């Protein structure tokens, strides 16, 4: 009994399980430690604060637009990466993946620099101002999050056997029809899951927004920027309220993502 209990296999299992539970407790403990510092009353009052409502509404608007654009671009891009052989595939892959590994701050700096170049200046002069403006926030959110969207969509299409489209082709579908009538509906759940994950990730973008759009109250303060401004100016209740809002959104989004069977992968 004693020997069996402490056999190598049992010890191994105990060790790996202990590591997992230690990690879970650490993560849960740290995240839950926010809650004792704010009462329910403070939380509900803070939610009615104009700064808080502005940053929530502004965030939802910017992230909504960014996610919509991301989805529109990442569905065809993910399909190409999943289905076609493309020239310079590894270079394309690296460029698409780069924003995932780059610090968001660098994305912000790169955007700032781009709008100092002739094409950037032309856009700002003739189309719309982006740097340090509200539309720029959408761009600052879009830039670091698009890679994750493309990867999610690619994973969604990878999960659909390409033979469905092949059979559809022999039944009379053009490539576009096979995509629209077969690949897209079959990948639908994964694509929605990818969009949800992208949306949740986009809500937390901070570095590129601060660098490219600035941290101006009631102007460019999306939720993470508003949290930063409030926590650094002593408005702890407002900061914690927005932190909890982000946390809840993250948990719900992740649950939705998993329920839809989403797969986010860098493969």
């Amino acid at each position, binding site marked *: 009994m004693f020997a069996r209990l402490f056999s190598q296999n049992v010890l191994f299992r105990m060790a790996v399980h202990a590591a997992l539970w230690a990690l879970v407790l650490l993560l849960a403990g740290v995240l839950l430690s926010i809650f004792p510092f704010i009462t329910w009353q403070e939380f509900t009052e803070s939610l009615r604060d104009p700064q808080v409502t502005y940053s929530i509404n502004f965030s939802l608007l910017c992230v909504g637009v960014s996610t919509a654009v991301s989805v529109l671009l990442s569905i065809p891009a993910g399909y190409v990466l999943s289905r076609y052989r493309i020239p310079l595939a590894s270079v394309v892959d690296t460029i698409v993946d780069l924003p995932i590994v780059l610090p968001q701050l660098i994305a912000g700096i790169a955007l700032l620099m781009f709008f100092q170049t002739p094409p950037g200046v032309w856009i700002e002069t003739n189309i719309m101002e982006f740097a340090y403006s509200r539309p720029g926030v959408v761009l600052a959110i879009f830039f670091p999050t698009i890679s994750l969207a493309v990867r999610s969509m690619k994973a969604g299409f990878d999960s659909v*056997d390409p033979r*469905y489209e*092949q*059979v559809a082709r*022999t*039944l*009379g*579908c*053009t490539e576009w029809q096979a995509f629209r009538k077969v690949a897209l509906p*079959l990948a639908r759940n994964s694509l929605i899951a990818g969009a949800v994950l992208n949306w949740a990730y986009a809500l937390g973008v901070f570095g590129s927004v601060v660098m490219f759009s600035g941290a101006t109250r009631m102007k460019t303060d999306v939720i993470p920027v508003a949290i930063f401004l409030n926590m650094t100016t002593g408005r702890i209740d407002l900061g914690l309220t927005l932190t909890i809002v982000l946390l809840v959104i993250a948990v719900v989004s992740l649950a939705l993502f998993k329920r839809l069977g989403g797969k986010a992968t860098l493969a």
Partner: protein
Amino acid sequence: MIEIRDIHKRLGDFSLRGVSVAIQEREYFVILGPTGAGKTVLLECIAGLHPVDHGQVFINGVDVTDFPPERRRISYVPQDYVLFPHLSVYENIAFSLRLLRWPADRIEARVTELTDLLRISHLLHRAPRTLSGGEQQRTALARALAPQPTALLLDEPLSALDETTRIAVGEELKTLPERFGTTLVHVCHDFEEALRLATRIGIIYQGLLVQVGTPEEVFTRPNCRFVAEFTRVRNLLPVEQWEKTAHGVLCQIAGGPRLLAAEAPAWNGPVIATIRPENVVIKPGSQGDASSFSATVTDIEVIGGAADVVLGVGELRLHALMTRQSIGQAALQVGSQVAASIAPADVHLAPDSFLPPELQASEEQQTG
């Protein structure tokens, strides 16, 4: 009619090499070969799913080599059917008809016609995942037949079915060319399945089409060692010399008896006599007629209701297939002396090479 001329296609390490064949209208043509021989690639080249590197594909006389799959009017049923899981059985079958913009009543009539013929009209509102293997098979066939294709390409259509369903579905497949006026190209690796269903068989090996013929031709007159072995001809006997006589072609088997063959080989090089084990007739005792030869039973291996009786004739080993009952009646056992005979029509002389001589050179070039 489907005609493929000198098709070459390289896919990774595999390549189809100079495949040419003409498949007639309403023919049940089976592409037969071992795993990895290139059967599916050939099928997919016909369907237009792979652009060919060289060669041409003609459908009813029209060169469709550069046509995309949707313009070829050829339906393809993959091995595991690949029914669209997001559509009901009805919608799967109506899929191509909606693309053709048929009016709803005409679509319904066509779906009803097909599902009645294939006996799946009770499944119309079911999801594909809830169907049995046989039901999925019939639904895939109905979907493929719906747009009235010129040809139907079936990739191992029976391999995923259990034995009972396989036989029943096989019988149904056999009737499709006549019932639906379509040409059928069926890929499989099972020789008996091919024999049961095909009007003609094309045997493929490592991307080469080795022999094309009726089941009878392929079964009784293999054109090389590979086809003989693949079609389970157990007796491949090297012929030392042969000469034409008034009664047929007299062959001296190396280390064995003299046998009479009905036809001379169509090849001048070394030949083998291929004799199916079921065509070796055994009589107990060493006294036979003039056409028989003496042999000794060296082994008897019983497999179910049949037995492989191995005969020693000089240095030669000859396999004969007998029923258990006939072994009992003849009181055969290891060591028994018997008289064996083979009818001249059952002795086929084939080139003594692994592949037909004209393909052997290409094969040797490929393998270096």
